[in-house]
């Protein structure tokens, strides 16, 4: 899939022009043409950015478009940039043998998005991990508790303002 394209493409316009037949791009455009906020093709990996409120419908559209397997999700803290957090979902298509990344930015003030466990149950632990280590909440998650750290732990260690050696 991605082999045909080796050149890096930056920006939504370039991706739409350079790889209009890519099934993930097509699936998202069929869902909502203006839903795709940004896109990038870099080092053989396609990154699609959507608004944080659109994560669930966008993933449903991708699932319907053949991207059937949830592989990974995590967050990146871009402190002190605004918006602070980036959520990255990695979705695999068994049929196309291709991986894509769906990205959404989340503000620090109210870091909450919709849980995707209604699409893939397997996201359960991954969202709990992000909640535990970054403090981003997931609405309608079946059991949003700390997973790796003890329940009474203070703070979220993977945030950049949390010291590497911990609070002493």
């Amino acid at each position, binding site marked *: 899939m991605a082999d045909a394209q080796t050149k890096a493409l930056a920006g939504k316009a370039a991706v739409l022009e350079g790889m209009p037949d890519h099934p993930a791009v097509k699936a998202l455009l069929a869902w909502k043409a203006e839903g795709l906020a940004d896109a990038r093709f*870099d*080092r*053989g*990996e396609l*990154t699609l950015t959507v608004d944080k409120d659109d994560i669930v419908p966008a993933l449903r559209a991708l699932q319907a478009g053949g991207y*059937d*397997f*949830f*592989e*990974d999700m*995590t967050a*990146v*803290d871009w402190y002190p940039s605004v918006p602070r957090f980036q959520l*990255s979902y*990695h979705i695999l298509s*068994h049929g196309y*043998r291709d*991986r894509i*990344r769906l990205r959404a930015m989340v503000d620090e003030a109210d870091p*909450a998005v919709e849980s995707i466990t209604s699409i*893939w*149950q*397997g*996201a*359960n*632990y*991954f969202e709990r*991990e992000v909640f535990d*280590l970054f403090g981003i*909440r*997931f*609405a*309608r*998650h*079946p*059991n*949003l*508790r*700390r*997973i*790796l*750290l*003890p*329940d009474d732990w203070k703070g979220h*260690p*993977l945030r950049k303002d*949390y010291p*590497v050696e911990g609070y002493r």
Partner: protein
Amino acid sequence: MPDIVGTPILEAPVAEGAKDQHMVLNMGPQHPSTHGVLRLVLEIDGEIVVRLYPEIGYLHTGIEKTCEAKFYQQVIPLTDRIDYLGPMANNLCYCLAVEKLLELEIPERAVWIRVLLTELTRLNSHLIWLGTHAMDIGALTVFLYTFREREEILRMFEMVSGQRMMTSYFRIGGLAMEPPLGLLERIQAFIKTFPEKIDEYSNLLTGNPIFFRRLKGVGHLSKEDAISLGVTGPVARASGIDFDNRRDAPYSSYEKFQFNVPVSTDCDVWARYLLRLEEMRQSVRIIQQALDGMPGGPVKANAPKIVLPDREAMKTQMESLIHHFKIVTEGFAVPAGEVFQCIESGHGTMGYYVVSDGTAKPWRVHMRYPGFATLQALEVMCKGRLLADVVAVIGSIDIVLGEIDR
């Protein structure tokens, strides 16, 4: 946004209306058949599992946070300690991810030796799985046989890296050093007899009626559930998902090797057992091809600003000395960007998500390990079955808590 739903663990599991008959049982974290420090809270009705709740995090050491404070090359020894039964696979996945960020070309010989050693790692991982899985079921003998072969693999790891378990042998840009003389011959000798050893394990277990009846039909996981729960690797392939990263998303020149990907649609513990035995045979095939076609040449990329110079060059050439000093004291800058590199480890899809901000330290390293997702399937596989089957199912998903807790 609605409020967050959460249940405190110790009050939870007893189902409504069943408080009198049901009992909550705590299994682990110190329990030999939980393979480390997995704790399960089970709600049981007699001997039938009603609910099961895995409690993890006992081995959490914050490796992802530690990585952010290290130079790129200093992260490699940390990766060994995650899936401690497959050290080379961890190293490989991390190195491939950073090499993808750097867009660095690796010499062919280094790539082939990486394939050779990762397949030995897979054998190592599968041998531990087989020994401990059989031991959980009650077949103690097999453990001694598999550890005999594992010992030989560990000695070969010691030959190449000086370490038996925490190898750290792969480097960004190739290998740490040329493997010692005699290694390839030793692997050849090992591979020549190994298929007979697999037959030996198979003779001990496959025809054993106790083993068969403990495994057959236990731990059913349908294909739909496996996809929904994010299950990968041998467990997914035993549920009919025909996907192997080595074949379907080739990395590290796996497209040049001939091998079969065993798939089963039986969805039970027995299918996973047979499938992993076949995977070992296929690994032997790959190792044989790697030995036969081993190319010559250097084992480090020609990138003096990234790869440490040879000791000799460092002591005789000014420029090499400067590069050495710079890499050790300041690291090397990696162009900004993000990559997600997946490989097929012994347990399934292992992925490293590395984000760079253009400096010498990674901005974020996230590890996607197969066990973390597979553990979620445990309840589906055990619900409504006997308590004793839980042990068989844990054995069949080949759990390593180091990779789950990180």
